[in-house]
């Protein structure tokens, strides 16, 4: 636990940040992200709390950034590129800067893991902003939408195209088929969406060397020692320890992947041909788990169905399930190809301003290579359950439970259960400050390696979208 004195200091820092941000902002700050500007709307028309979408925002997204029931891309996007003014550009471009200004970690570091009693580490870091994204999206013309998101990750110092795709909407009839081509967030229409979370992903911290002392990481087929585990939704994550992409890079067990990946290259079709109650989605991906290119032998395929109830009484509910079939989409230590599949269900319900969601997934490696036989658990599961609610018009409280029953190399894997709590206060519609604490529920289980020793993590951060 954070000591009394320390939490007081952290709280003061958080409050000071709060005040500073509030003071610096001009009173009539009217900065609103692109879609809101374009339609002259508040963010809250589409978002329960950015970036999470309400039912109306979801249908806007599904319709290729056109209002539900319309094909209005031709009306609001009729300007030619040459006629664009700065105001128009404003209607397309948004920025998001988010991160934990102050993080405090409390974990036991063993070096090498599992061999010594370990040193208790209580570390405070200043890291804001952890990520900076610029996104632009809209319609090129009627029924042709686009989205490009550039992300800059301050910890790795690299900029990436997180997403970039074109969508062709309302093919064969209104809401019958919408096609996305490019690099897109695969699970965008799932009841629990990877890129739309209240509790931001916090990556693990890696030691840089493997248990054998050799450098781990790029292209080495050498596992990385995890100093401190990541805090990400277990249902969406990789879940396996000791998996590699096809070039030998260690795959983080905490990164969202497969159907729940935030960005994969491929083609995807979705629609609601029978009315609002039912959505289908099918797609094909490179599925190589590589940032670019396609070195694997086959494509990955997936299908999802979703049932919706969104009619009246301030209530909505949805239930979705998917099957994702990988085709030599990863390798194990022995450099053998494996087919890595995932089966998942998720649900979400909102009543007034209470938003409850849950997701469960089973990951399976369908044939364990003989080289790792007996050392590799080919099944892993993840469960995530959460709730967000506004307690006042400006304050949102979130609670999330994660349970990871990890798979992969039996001597490396780390199961975990965490509870995350967060209070987020919106100073303006688009500027929020938050404090968050994640607790490890498996305290008694000291485990054999360092990763299990994360006790407590405190964050205080800022989320700005403009």
């Amino acid at each position, binding site marked *: 636990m954070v000591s009394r004195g320390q939490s007081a200091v952290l709280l003061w820092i958080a409050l000071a940040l709060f005040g500073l941000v509030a003071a610096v902002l001009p009173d009539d700050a009217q900065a609103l992200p692109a879609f809101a500007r374009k339609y002259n709307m508040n963010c809250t*028309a589409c978002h329960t709390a950015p970036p999470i979408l309400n039912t109306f925002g979801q*249908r806007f997204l599904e319709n290729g950034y056109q209002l539900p*029931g319309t094909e209005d891309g031709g009306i609001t996007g009729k300007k030619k590129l040459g006629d664009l003014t700065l105001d128009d550009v404003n209607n397309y471009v948004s920025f998001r800067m988010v991160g934990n200004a102050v993080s405090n970690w409390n974990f036991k570091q063993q070096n090498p893991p599992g061999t010594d009693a370990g040193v208790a580490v209580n570390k405070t870091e200043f890291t804001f902003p952890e990520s900076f994204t610029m996104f632009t999206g809209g319609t090129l013309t009627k029924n042709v939408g686009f989205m490009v998101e550039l992300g800059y990750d301050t910890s790795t110092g690299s900029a990436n195209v997180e997403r970039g795709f074109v969508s062709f909407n309302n*093919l064969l009839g209104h809401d019958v088929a919408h096609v996305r081509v490019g690099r897109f967030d695969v699970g965008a229409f799932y009841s629990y969406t990877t890129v739309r979370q209240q509790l931001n992903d916090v990556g693990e911290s890696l030691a840089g060397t493997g248990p054998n002392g050799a450098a781990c990481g790029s292209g080495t087929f050498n596992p990385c020692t995890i100093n401190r585990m990541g805090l990400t939704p277990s249902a969406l994550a990789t879940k396996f320890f000791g998996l590699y992409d096809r070039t030998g890079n260690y795959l983080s067990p905490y990164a969202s992947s497969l159907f729940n990946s935030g960005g994969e290259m491929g*083609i995807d079709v979705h629609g609601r041909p029978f009315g609002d109650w039912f959505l289908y989605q099918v797609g094909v991906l490179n599925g190589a788990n590589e940032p670019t290119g396609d070195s694997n032998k086959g494509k990955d395929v997936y299908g999802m169905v979703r049932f919706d109830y969104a009619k009246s009484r*301030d209530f909505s509910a949805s239930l979705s399930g998917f099957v994702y079939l990988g085709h030599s989409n990863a390798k194990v230590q022995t450099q053998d190809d494996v087919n890595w599949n995932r089966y998942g269900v998720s649900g979400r319900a909102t009543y007034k301003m209470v938003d409850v969601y849950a997701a469960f997934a089973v990951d399976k490696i369908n044939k364990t290579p003989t080289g790792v036989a007996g050392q590799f658990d080919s099944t892993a599961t993840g469960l995530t359950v959460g709730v967000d609610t506004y307690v006042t*018009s400006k304050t949102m409280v979130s609670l999330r439970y994660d349970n990871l029953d990890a798979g992969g190399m039996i001597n490396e894997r780390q199961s975990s259960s965490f509870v995350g709590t967060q209070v987020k206060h919106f100073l303006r519609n688009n500027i929020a400050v938050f404090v968050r604490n994640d607790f490890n529920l498996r305290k008694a289980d000291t485990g054999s390696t360092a990763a299990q020793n994360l006790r407590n993590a405190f964050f205080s951060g800022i989320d700005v979208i403009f």
Partner: protein
Amino acid sequence: MRFWITVCIGAVALLGGIGIDGAFAVKPEDNRATREKGKRIYERSCIFCHGSEGKGDGPAGWYLGRYEAPRPRDFTTESFKFRSTASGELPTDQDLFRTVTQGIPGYMPSFAGLNEEERWQVVSYIKTFNPSFKEEKPQPLPLPLPPGPPTDAGIEHGRKLYMKYGCHSCHGDNGYGDGSESLKGNLKDSRGLTISARNLTERESLKNGSTPRDIYRSVMTGLDGTPMPSFADSFAGKEKDAWDLIYYILSLSQDRR
């Protein structure tokens, strides 16, 4: 690579299916078929905010203003804000059509993406939620053309009227929506939710339109269901005064440009 080429060709072929429909601008007769079509549009476009029974209880409704106003209109019982008719009356079809076309800045998008026929159809349908639409024949109040361009003297006179009629107590001395009643949180809408008086210096945020005649209409008819009253009686027979006031309000946003 071959795979992707096939895919692209497929996509282009499908794209050919996207046509341009030049549907045309006639108000359809208000009959069963029209209302049925309107219902289909309503259930795709409006239901998430207004709810399947028009009670303003769609699942996205609460998030808009959270614990404050506005919530989506309950078509079954609530009065309407944006009318050309006298306070207390129903809106005309044209009024409803205008709201659907222009949207409501901040809270409801413009549905100009539906063609005109579709917008009339959905208007026919939402009227079925409130039986009074069958009985009453709402008549618009006269909406005169402005007498001429604004003058400095007229605007100055308008400022005095603004104080005289107490607009400042809600909208603030300079129109920023920061009048004492607003700041004290005394203003509530018909659901009892806190509502703020409009910031009149931000023209693009006016919900009922921002042309001189739009503002004239707002002031004369009032926004029913909110503390914003109708001033039709105060200005009866004093049309010149009314326009001075309107031009003063317009000058509040012009200064900032």
